[in-house]
């Protein structure tokens, strides 16, 4: 049944239907609504779960690590500075192979203090060993969160479901919510591969000397490489139950496109409009919406973008001293591809600034008119110097 709910509550509903057993989180705008609803579900008995209150995000992740090691389905949510504070334990969770699911609301880092949309917080965690899935709308948020538990529990890696601050977290949209029975049909109870047991005690994640460490790291990468296939299988199952699927990436009008815009999150919705409008005017524009960032879907990227002429990547993030992070990754993915296209990098929408149809059309035109990229990153929408 469709209900008009906030993006935040789409997460909360999915977590409830996933029958999560332990949650621990620390409030931070714009993530707070997610755990606020969940704490109410715990308090009023709608969920049979423990909500562990903690004094920081570092402790929240530590509590999740403990709970997940105990073999229960575990969830947390955070944003921006809170996520940054978790950093050390994000590494721990993945290397301990714990299938924790986190909702991450993309928010800028201070200073200047800013609570609005920006992707630098989640992208700063790209090397922590977490799977990262970026969502476009409330429905995708709900669906991806439910899928995330199966994905995490299958490959034994933690999953971050990423959604834009306010544009998604605080926007009310119709979301089709299944009944519990249907959700259960897709997501069975958690059967842990690793579990602390009273009857079979052991020490977990203790010292791994040089003779063992490297193999353990290699095994994490091995698990990451199975994600593409596993994700497709899970999506197929999901499609069978719910009749929806998204893909690791989605290509729109790319076959004959001269310029392909690569976008993530809510900007994809805006971009769909721009593609439709410009196509009507005869422009050969296409769009790729990138959903999966870790593991990076190399093959799919090469297959979809390898034959294009020009690619324009929109980054709502920035790696200081280098360029937009998605653009870097796409350049790296294509550089060994014979006859690879030119990659134009654009920085826009930082700290909650709007990405409008005009912004995207400007990017399209600049890309189309430039024979080659003038620089690694072009910042769009900057105010004129006063």
């Amino acid at each position, binding site marked *: 049944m469709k209900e008009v709910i906030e993006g935040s509550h789409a997460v909360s509903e999915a977590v409830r239907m996933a029958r999560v057993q332990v949650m621990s989180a620390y409030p931070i705008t714009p993530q707070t609504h997610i755990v606020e609803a969940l704490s109410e579900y715990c308090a009023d008995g709608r969920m049979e779960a423990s909500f562990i209150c903690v004094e920081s995000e570092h402790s929240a992740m530590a509590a999740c690590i403990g709970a997940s090691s105990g073999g229960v389905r575990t969830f947390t949510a955070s944003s921006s500075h809170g996520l940054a504070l978790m950093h050390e334990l994000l590494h721990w969770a993945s*290397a*301990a*192979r714990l299938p924790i699911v986190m909702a991450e609301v993309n928010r800028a880092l201070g200073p200047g203090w800013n609570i609005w949309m920006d992707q630098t917080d989640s992208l700063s965690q790209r090397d922590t060993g977490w799977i990262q899935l970026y969502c476009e709308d409330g429905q995708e948020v709900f669906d991806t969160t439910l899928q995330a538990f*199966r994905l995490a*529990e*299958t*490959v*034994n890696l933690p999953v971050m479901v990423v959604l834009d601050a306010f544009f998604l977290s605080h926007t009310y949209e119709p979301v089709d919510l299944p009944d519990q029975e249907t959700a259960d*049909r*897709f*997501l*069975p109870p958690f*059967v842990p*591969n*690793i579990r602390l047991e009273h009857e*079979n*005690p*052991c*020490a*977990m*994640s*203790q*010292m*791994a000397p040089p003779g*063992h460490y490297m*193999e*353990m790291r290699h*095994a994490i990468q*091995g*698990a990451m490489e*199975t994600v593409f296939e*596993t994700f497709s*299988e*899970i999506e197929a*199952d999901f499609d069978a139950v719910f009749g929806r699927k998204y893909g690791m990436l989605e290509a729109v009008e790319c076959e004959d496109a001269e310029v392909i815009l690569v976008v993530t999150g809510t900007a994809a919705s805006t971009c769909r409009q721009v593609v439709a409008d410009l196509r009507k005017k005869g422009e050969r524009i296409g769009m790729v919406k990138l959903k999966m960032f870790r593991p990076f879907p190399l093959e799919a990227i090469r297959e979809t973008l390898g034959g294009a002429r020009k690619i324009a990547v929109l980054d709502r993030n920035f790696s200081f001293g280098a360029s937009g992070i998605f653009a870097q990754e796409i350049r790296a993915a294509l550089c060994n591809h014979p006859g690879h296209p030119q990659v134009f990098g654009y920085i826009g929408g930082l700290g909650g600034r709007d990405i409008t149809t005009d912004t995207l059309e400007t990017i399209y035109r600049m890309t189309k008119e430039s024979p080659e990229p003038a620089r690694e990153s072009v910042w769009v929408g900057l105010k004129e110097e006063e």
Partner: protein
Amino acid sequence: MTESEKNLKSERIPPVISQSKISTEANQTGTWRFLRPGYDEKTAPCSAACPAGEDIGRIEMLAAKGDLDGAWETILGENPFPAVCGRVCFHPCEGVCNRGEFDSAIAIHGLERFIGDAGIRKKLSAPVPRHTKVSKRIAVAGAGPAGLSAAYFLARIGYGCDIFEAAPEPGGLLRWGIPQYRLPAAVLAAEIDRIESIGVKIHCNSPIHEGRLEGLQRDYDGLFVGCGEGRPIPLKIPGEELALDGLDFLRQMRQGKETCNGVRTAAVIGGGNTAIDVSRSLLRMGAKKVLLIYRRRREDMPAFAQEVELAIQEGVELVELRAPVRIERKDRDCRLILGPMRAEGTAQDGRARILPADGEEESLDVQSLYRAIGAEPAADWLRPSQKGDVERFSRSRIYYDQFPIIFGGDLTNPTKSVADAIGSGKEAAMLFDTLFAEGREAIHDRLQQCRVGQGKSLSMEMYLSGRRKTRNKEEVPFERINTEHFTKAPRQNTPLPGPAHVIGSFAETEKSFSEGAAQKEAERCFNCGICNDCDNCRLFCPEVSVNLSDPRTCEAAGLNRQIDYQYCKGCGICVVECPRDAMSLTEETTPL
């Protein structure tokens, strides 16, 4: 397995993590250690300052745990007079209390009285004498605090003891020199009875004089002389005979013979504790005005400061820097002529030199006049001489002979207090026993072993090889207390009714603690240097290497915890987190 569970395909990718199923006991982290923590109980400054060497930190620890019997027995190990000392001691312990630097000193004095009174109320019995009886017998001259203590400790070691007392009742200065409002007779009697209960015999109306020495030599193996100073020092001024003796006044009063009818103004000459006691007694007996005449200043008084303060609060008027010149008869009154004095420089005893000042003489008419400027031994043979085979100790002097004689109490003590007299009696008991058992040469080392901390006080528990013997003589300074583990709490004070309630009454002035207040106050004690089972060492140990001792062996070890050195890394956290410095960290010397 359901269809969807199969879909999880978890068997497809076995996650590799580090995991250990063996016990971490295999990792003997003790091999990393280069510093070694250990239990090292030290000396609390209060106990070193106590002339009787009481184990105050332990007494308060037991009282805080509600073990009043244990606290009482701990006092009795070092002092047979807790209820007396809890009333009349000048408590030097409180002056050095580490808690004083944190908020305010523990009310050790009030707690001792509370514990002593509980012992009397519960009719607790004194510690039993040592099993092995000693064949030797000691005679004691004087049943004051020194003589009674000497006999008490000798009896505990196993000696037969007879006390010979000139007065009709035992107690000495406690019985005759301290008024009822400070020390009720029943309290004193109860504590003396207890000393008799362990086999000490007291013969009253039986003064020892030089002529009896030969007879004593026949019947005893040694003599302790603790007769005190019974002869008042004269003023040496014209009209001296018009002034009454203060000590004699107190004695008459205790016998119910003294009255103070019709006295408008009384004057007391002196600055010691007797002068204060006489002044406060006169007020209670109805004197309208009491003047305390002192040739020096208040700060120079040998009387205990707290007693002076109470006397002034009660209405005694202090007249400083006035020396009596002569006393004249004026009708039925006395006329006291006073000369002005001045303070100048510093004399040998550290006090200011007092010299006659320019100025008019003053005269003062009073109905009664008392002198209390000190006393001296009643007979010449009691004056300990330096001649002969004599050796001086901290609180006594011994004459070696076939028949050894030890002089103690006020005759030899630099500080003339009840607690010092008790310490003197204890020292004498150790001297006799060591002399007889191990010989004269052993005395020095034996006393050193029994010192409480760095001071001159002695411990009978150490002498009898009790647990206290293992205690480090290092005194715990305030800086070694981990104050993070303490919260500030106001000192509980014993109730003290205002002056309006004391006039005309010889009821005890200061009241005792309630049980609740006593417990609260005892809980404030840092227990400096002494393990009170707070468990911090065990709880803070990151290596889980502090274990509770096996109760069957802990009695022998004396402590309820032990360190497992196979795993202790020597991080020292236990030592830092010990709130009371009962642990130490030393360099590791044992090769593992």
